[in-house]
């Protein structure tokens, strides 16, 4: 009987301790949330036989979850089918933003939910002649169906980013067309393109590689 009591006492204390420590530490972490960014415009001048590609990239920050004009506080940027990261050097095309952060990208095979951590991944950075996320159909994030003139994000390609300030995020691009329609008519394919919609999970905690949302 005595031992049982002792054991209960111990258990109680242990539980209190554990509960206490939970209470104490939780506020230090910011909750990891799943978000959707819709209709991020990615205009481009030229390309597709219309002369050299140019025009400013649309910059995006995971911390604010929005498009930004900042020259430094951005993580990834879009122009047409190209995705730039704020890390490495300019690839050499016209009107690219200056890379001044330490962002990088990795492409992981899986469903969005199955990618749970950025641990152990190799992050590529933009470099002369090549974006970290390779261009071209079936090379990087998209497939281009020539006869139908449709760009579709490759299934099972999850983009994991290191942000300009060393945090981690994962992205699944859902659509390249305005309002992410489930059916892309020739009309949409010809007029409402260069609008990115993607799901993302951003872990705002310094040094944390966990990418599961609450």
């Amino acid at each position, binding site marked *: 009987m005595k031992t049982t009591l002792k054991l209960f006492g111990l258990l109680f204390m242990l539980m209190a301790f554990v509960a206490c420590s939970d209470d104490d530490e939780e506020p230090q972490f910011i909750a990891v949330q799943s978000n959707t960014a819709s209709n991020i415009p990615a205009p481009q001048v030229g*390309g*597709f*036989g219309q002369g050299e*590609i140019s025009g400013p990239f649309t910059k995006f920050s995971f911390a604010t979850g929005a498009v930004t004009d900042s020259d430094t506080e951005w993580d990834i940027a879009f122009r*047409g*089918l*190209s995705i730039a990261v704020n890390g490495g*050097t300019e690839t050499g*095309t016209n009107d690219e933003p200056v890379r001044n952060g330490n962002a990088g990208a990795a492409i992981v*095979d*899986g*469903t*969005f939910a*199955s990618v749970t951590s950025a641990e152990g991944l190799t992050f590529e950075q933009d*470099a*002369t*002649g*090549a974006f970290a996320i*390779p*261009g*071209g*159909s*079936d*090379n990087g994030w*998209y*497939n*281009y169906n*020539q*006869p139908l*003139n449709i760009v*579709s*994000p*490759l*299934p*099972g*390609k*999850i983009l994991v980013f290191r942000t300009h300030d060393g945090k981690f995020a994962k992205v*699944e691009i*859902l*659509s390249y067309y305005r309002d*992410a329609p*489930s*059916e892309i*008519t*020739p*009309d949409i394919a010809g007029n409402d393109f260069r609008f990115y*919609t993607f*799901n993302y999970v951003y872990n705002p905690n310094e040094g944390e590689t966990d990418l599961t949302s609450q």
Partner: protein
Amino acid sequence: MSLNKNNYLIIFFFMCSLGLWAQVESKNDSILTENLDEVVVTATRTVRQLSSLPLPVTLIPKKQIARSGVTRLDEILEEQTGIVLTPDATIGGGEGVQIQGIASDYILVLIDGVPVVGRSSGNLDLSRFAIGNIKQIEVVKGPSSALFGSEALGGVINIITEKPNTSKMSGQVTHRAATFNNQNTTVSINQRNKELGYSIFVDRLSTDGFDLVNGDEGQTINPFFNYTFNGRLFYDFSDNLRVFASGRYFLQDFEVPSGTSEERDGNVQLRLDHKLSKKSQFEYELYYTNYVTNEQTVDPIENEILLDNDFDQKLFRPEVRFNNSFDVDNTLTLGGGYNFETLDRSLFGEQVSFDSQYVFAQYDFKPFEKLNVIVGARFDNHSEYNSQLSPKISARYAIAPNFAIKGSVGSGFKAPDFRQLYLDFTNAQGGNYSVFGKEVELQGLERLIANNEIITDTNGNLILPVPLEDLGEPLNAESSIGYNLGFGYNKGKFKGDVNFYRNDFTDLIDTRILATKRNGANVFGYINRESVYTQGLEVDLKYEVLENLSFSAGYQLLYAFDKNVEDELEENGGFVRDPETLQTVEISRDEYFGLENRSRHTLNFKTFLEIPEWNANANLRVVYRSKFGLADRNGNGYLDDFDDSFVDGFALVNLSFGKTFFKHYQVQLGANNILDFRGENPFSTALNQIQVNPGIQFFGRLNIQF
């Protein structure tokens, strides 16, 4: 027209001039008279009774074609077991024939034993071939390269033209009018004297075409007209020396909104049959064919030429064959030939040519009474790719007088085509991507590199997924091995055949990315990569209830898959995009639907009725194919259950009635697709509703014989 036994023999000789003189003569006459309609030449290149063959062959007699009231090759093939006419995935494209699940690219089409050329992206348009003057159509299923060489992987379709057989000039005039202002006129004249025979055939077809897409400009099939001219000459110098000459010319012109689209196809065939003795014969054959298309798209406002696509293919082929029958059941066939082939095409740098030489041998024998074995092989030597040896063995064992088991194993191959070797194409209008054929890929890519069009890394080094030194390695021929095992039962009014088949394809030619351009577009080349298989079961039943009433039914079960995709899915699983949420979901092997355009089940049912008292006949034909997919639409490169590109199963019901007046006038009325099936194409959109079929088509046909 009364037929006595002598006439039978005469007809027989002329229609089987490809065949074996000695063997024919030594066979007993009862077989000839009983099975006159049931003799084929394509399976062995000798005259063989259909029911005794060890390999699967479909025979479509003239009578069936006439009764059905159809005028083009594709229309009659569609109603046969295991043969499917598939629509092109892109709207407005032609139809392709499919045998045992094998696509049109791998099926050889012959007219009187010589091959036709002129394929668009591998597909041969079978509606080009008028069937108003033919004796029968023979379809050999399974690889037949052991006799016919390249392209005969899936099978061979041989159109056998009718030979003249009356000493008085005879002929017929036919006109058929159908829905969509489809007007088809045919005139044919035949005569055969003792030494000299001739046959003239003219066919004209015109139509307003039709539209499958509601709410867009233009039509799916533009209005067109075409002419077929065919003249043939038969002359016997003596009983031992006979000559046959044939010329065919086809001209087709599409009325396109702006520009022109023209197609011409001509062939000349000259054959000399020299009988050495009762048992052996030489056949010398010269064949020339030329296929030309001119396509021009003109800007209607500026009157500028936007696209000028010309295609000019020529084939010249001398061939010698020798047959020797040691006795009734032992026949040796030997042959050899030379192919000279050239192609001049706008998208090629220069005119290109192929040379190939071949020899083949076949021995058809009976080791003992109940067993028939045919062994054969062909060797093809080619100027541009590896030589090919194609063996085949088939055997039939008669377990009982009415019941036989038959099996065959054979190989087939398809030479890389001109496009896969010589294409040099950059799409300036859409996306600026480039495609290079194998022979020009190295020069092509080096040209792009020199122009500084290819992406480089930080240090200025080229990024090339395929090292330059690996480019230009010769392509292998695509090849297959086909297995068939079947049972045949034949008793009185009932005939039944069951056949299990499997076709394994390797080295199928696919495209791969050679480099990426600075503008993001890719540079493509060709490579041997894919391996696929088709397997299943065919059942054919025929029952002659009464002398004038017959039923037939056919069924094909088909599994067709890409082995690489299967393996990948089994090992690692795969991913697709959910069409609603657009998110990636994981899929397994079970959700892989298989190759495009393949239906798991196809069925046909035909019944023919004759009422001699009324000089009338009627028939009903039904063709059904189950659900099939058109294309991958969710970006993973294969058809799966999530792809929104399936056409639901459907049946086409065709009906026709015929009556003969005053002996020489035949009137026929009927309707194809009498249930008015239209279907819905999965590529339909809210704005553009796309149908699968244009709907019911009525026709009337008048035939006058003289």
